């Protein structure tokens, strides 16, 4: 900003909605940020194309009232995210403006607020010592941010090696104070503060290596953890027609997943859903730490009525924050709802620029943009031997609920877990409506992960999971036959097989996100219930007629649901289990 006088200037030459043509008087770069002056209000915009002396800029705000010849100041840098202590628990818009610092009920154009607090003091403790040689991302010291160790690092933009000359003593400092001096390879000293900036659209590469994910990320959602597990540092996506439960599922993950930090990017979705997080998270406890959920959460809210161009930026803002915290050796879960809205923002702009459209009028390079974004997630080993991870799960809102559309198809190539929500399951209120047979986790087949399951859950776990899946498949097969041939047109065993699948469905797959106990199931309990369900599967029952089968298994299911609703190992739970056991005895063939 200090160099602004030498910076290129321009004048507005044309306006079509939020695409503005700017005649420039000097050099500009692709994706450079500029500010358009509208009677003193500075509208932020980004260059998306350059033709001769005309820069095509997408304006992040409404262009109402803009005129030809309004002046434009270019900044010389891309959209940059400000990184430093104070990000946790914040509510940002897509451009990292702190929403709580904005005045008034309505968002005002041109209002840009500081993402951090300049005068807040942080309790600093040095980590590096004079003489240490560090690279970008190397830890200099730490401050406590909501009880989380927040590392102050050598800025990501620094290339090469830096020798620590001094690190300030433990004490209270603001983010603007110099906390370390490092010397670069040419012997030049550089003062460092607690803040650094990073261009949102570029991946932070300050780590040593990115191995294949090899650990489970526990989410408390049974159909995920047990049947389609996601790995720490893995990627997944949730496509589904409207109203099938994408947001409810993501909210459940954000509440329960076993991560150090949760970043929620509300990208072009409903404001009321974000308000739900604002209202609930400061009240809800994080079961692992006993602290409030909001203390580990940062929200990027670019709701559907907020400017479209900023919607595109919002997912990059969120990813950059995640990369920053990953470099501190933390386990991050990043959730974006909905990545389709981001793709639509790209489409709107591409159409306005009259680019040659790809399928469904989306830009041709959509698949590349999506896979590039997903590739920023991952488990990493840092240069100092510690590890950190970003697990990323996005939702996709396919037009007409049809999964053969460009955003779903492109995402399918990029993400390793596929949680397909089915309209049919949602209609019959079988929540979460993840289709157990369509969905998959590629991680479940990783030998690293199988090993992890055998060691940490149960030596037979992978076999049990495959069996559960098979039970579901066979149940679906016989149900089709029963539909064709009629209840009494098939042997009674068919009904038995069908209903054993229903037990898996009702007891393991279905989970009430709004019940205080059932909403989250720890792995230990998931194992217990799966074993119980498999026991029932292996039990032979005697039935006279097919009518007995359905009514008997409904009682079994009802009893097991009561178990799911009661606190694990409580008296209530044990009583329900006792009743279940006697119910099993009723028809068990010894």
């Amino acid at each position, binding site marked *: 900003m200090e160099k602004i006088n030498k910076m290129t200037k321009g004048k507005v*030459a044309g*306006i*079509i909605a939020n695409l503005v043509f700017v005649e420039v008087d000097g050099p500009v770069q692709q994706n450079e940020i500029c500010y358009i002056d509208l009677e003193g209000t500075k509208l932020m915009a980004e260059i998306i194309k350059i033709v001769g002396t005309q820069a095509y800029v997408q304006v992040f705000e*409404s262009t*109402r*009232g*803009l*005129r*030809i010849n309004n002046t434009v100041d270019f900044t010389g840098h891309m959209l940059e995210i400000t990184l430093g202590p104070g990000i946790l628990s914040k*509510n940002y818009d897509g451009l990292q403006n702190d*929403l709580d610092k*904005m005045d*008034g*009920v*309505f*968002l*005002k154009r041109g209002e840009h607020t500081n993402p951090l607090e300049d005068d807040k003091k942080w309790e600093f403790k040095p980590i590096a010592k004079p003489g240490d040689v560090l690279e970008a991302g190397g830890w200099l010291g730490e401050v406590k941010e909501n009880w989380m160790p927040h590392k102050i690092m050598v800025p990501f933009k620094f290339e090469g090696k830096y020798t620590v000359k001094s690190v300030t003593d433990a004490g209270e400092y603001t983010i603007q104070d110099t906390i370390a001096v490092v010397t670069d390879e040419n012997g030049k000293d550089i003062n460092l503060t607690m803040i650094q900036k990073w261009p949102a659209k570029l991946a932070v590469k300050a780590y040593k290596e990115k191995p294949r994910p090899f650990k489970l990320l526990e989410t408390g959602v049974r159909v995920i953890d047990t049947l389609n597990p996601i790995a720490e540092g893995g990627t997944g996506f949730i496509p589904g027609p*409207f*109203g099938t439960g994408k947001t409810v599922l993501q909210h459940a993950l954000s509440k329960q997943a076993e991560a150090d930090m949760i970043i929620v990017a509300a990208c*072009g979705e*409903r*404001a*009321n859903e*974000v*308000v739900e997080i*604002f*209202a609930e998270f400061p009240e809800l406890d994080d079961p692992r730490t006993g602290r409030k959920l909001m203390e580990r959460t940062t929200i990027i*809210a670019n*709701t*559907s*009525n*907020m400017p*479209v161009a900023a919607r595109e930026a919002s997912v990059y803002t969120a990813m950059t924050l995640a990369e920053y915290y990953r470099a501190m050796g933390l386990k991050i879960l990043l959730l974006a709802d909905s990545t389709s809205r981001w793709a*639509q923002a790209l*489409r*709107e702009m591409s159409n306005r620029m*009259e680019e040659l*459209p790809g399928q*469904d*009028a989306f830009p041709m390079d959509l698949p590349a943009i999506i896979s590039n974004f997903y590739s920023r997630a991952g488990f990493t080993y840092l240069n100092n031997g510690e590890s950190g991870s970003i697990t990323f799960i996005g939702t996709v*809102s396919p*037009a*007409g*609920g*049809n999964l053969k559309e460009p955003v779903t198809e492109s995402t399918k190539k990029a993400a390793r877990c596929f949680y397909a929500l089915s309209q049919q399951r949602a*209609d*019959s*209120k079988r929540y979460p409506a993840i289709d157990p047979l369509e969905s998959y986790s590629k991680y479940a087949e990783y030998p690293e992960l199988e090993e992890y399951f055998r060691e940490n859950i149960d030596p037979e776990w992978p076999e049990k999971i495959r069996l559960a899946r098979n039970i579901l498949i066979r149940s679906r097969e016989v149900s089709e036959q029963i*539909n064709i041939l*009629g*209840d009494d047109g098939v042997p009674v065993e068919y009904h038995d097989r069908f209903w054993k699948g229903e037990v898996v469905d009702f007891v393991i797959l279905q989970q009430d996100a*709004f019940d205080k106990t059932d909403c989250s199931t720890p792995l230990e309990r998931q194992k217990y219930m799966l074993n119980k369900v498999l026991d029932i599967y292996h039990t032979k029952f005697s039935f006279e007629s097919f*009518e007995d089968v*359905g*009514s008997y298994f*409904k*009682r079994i299911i*009802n009893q097991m649901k*009561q178990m799911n*609703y009661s606190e694990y190992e409580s008296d209530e739970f044990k009583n329900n289990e006792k009743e279940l056991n006697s119910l099993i005895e009723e028809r068990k063939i010894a």
Partner: protein
Amino acid sequence: METKAFQKIYTKITQITKATCSLKATGIGYEEMAFVHGRLAQVVKIIGDDVTLQIFEGTEGVPTNAEVIFLGRPPVLKVSDELSGRYFNAYGDPIDGGPVIEGEERQIGGPSVNPVRRKQPSEFIPTGIAGIDLNNALVTGQKIPFFADPDQPYNQVMAMVALRADADKIILGGMGLTNDDYLFYKNVFDNAGALDRIISFVNTTENPPVERLLVPDMALTAAEYFAVDKNQKVLVLLTDMTLYADALSIVSNRMDQIPSKDSMPGSLYSDLAKIYEKAVQFPDGGSITIIAVTTLSGGDITHAIPDNTGYITEGQLFLRKDTDIGKVVVDPFRSLSRLKQLVIGKKTRADHPQVMNAAIRLYADAANAKTKQENGFDLTDYDERTLNFAKDYSDKLLAIDVNIEVDQMLETGWNLFNKHFEPAEVGIKQEFVDEYWPKN
């Protein structure tokens, strides 16, 4: 219309298309309003000194030497308490013969509410219709459309819901209303004895379709005035949003934009979201609740208009004719109120969520039994009971002519369970069964 000193006047149009005209002009603001040949128009594109205007009424008969007067401002509505009880056209001009409104001029289509200044909706809006209150409870600050085929009585149901709801203001945004429907609303409102609570912005089929594009913003600007400035509970009715979207596609096609699905503009999602997201609950008690109508063609919800709407709104209410009982019902399978969990079991009795879910599950079992029956298979005793239950449920709870309190709806639910099933078949938490299962 009067012209003022600062208004710029031009008389040389260089290009005319079906919806737009272009001319050379300078110092014009984007989205500024103008009169072209006496017709209202808005700036949609400026390239150098070439300015393109969209003319709401269409360009039929506009000559190249027509007078173009720029107004120096975007579209506005004058707001004050005087709006109450009045009828306006899409431009906010009175159509009821009454005086012009005095008040503060506000730009329509204004900025969004800062999400951190919203409050989580939590106030239940009872309507007496069990298909809504029991299964799809409405909450202040919610936005929800009726999805209905054109032959269903959606305007009647919506008027009924509006008048029963406890709102300080009801604002109707009518788009492409037939004259009969317009007169229906007028008649209902005039006779409800609540005219001072009601404000209407109306575009009928007799008006040019593109004018409709202004109606939701007019209605919502008035709504924001009462909700923000006066802390009132405002209910906005938008009918028919399908006709609004059709007008959007007319404009974008005439402006040669690349259409996306179903020849709708690629920005349809954002365009609709900008309207629906005006629904809000404020901490000071003011709120805007939007109930809309999206007509379907042949029940197809995968069409771009209902599809995008469904992705924006907080649920949808499906009307369907139940041929077994010969009444229109609120379809429990396809209807959904996403905010219901904020109030049911909290503002209403604790057994509400479970009664609701159990009844719908049994109704689904009945649907399966029906398929079986239609395929010529024998029905089990359970199947028979679900079918009987479904008929009762449809008649006593789902039909839109039901008008009872929520507690009565729950009682009715328990009585039907008891009449047709055993507790284990219903699958409700034991504590509620113990408390509410009728003891006979």
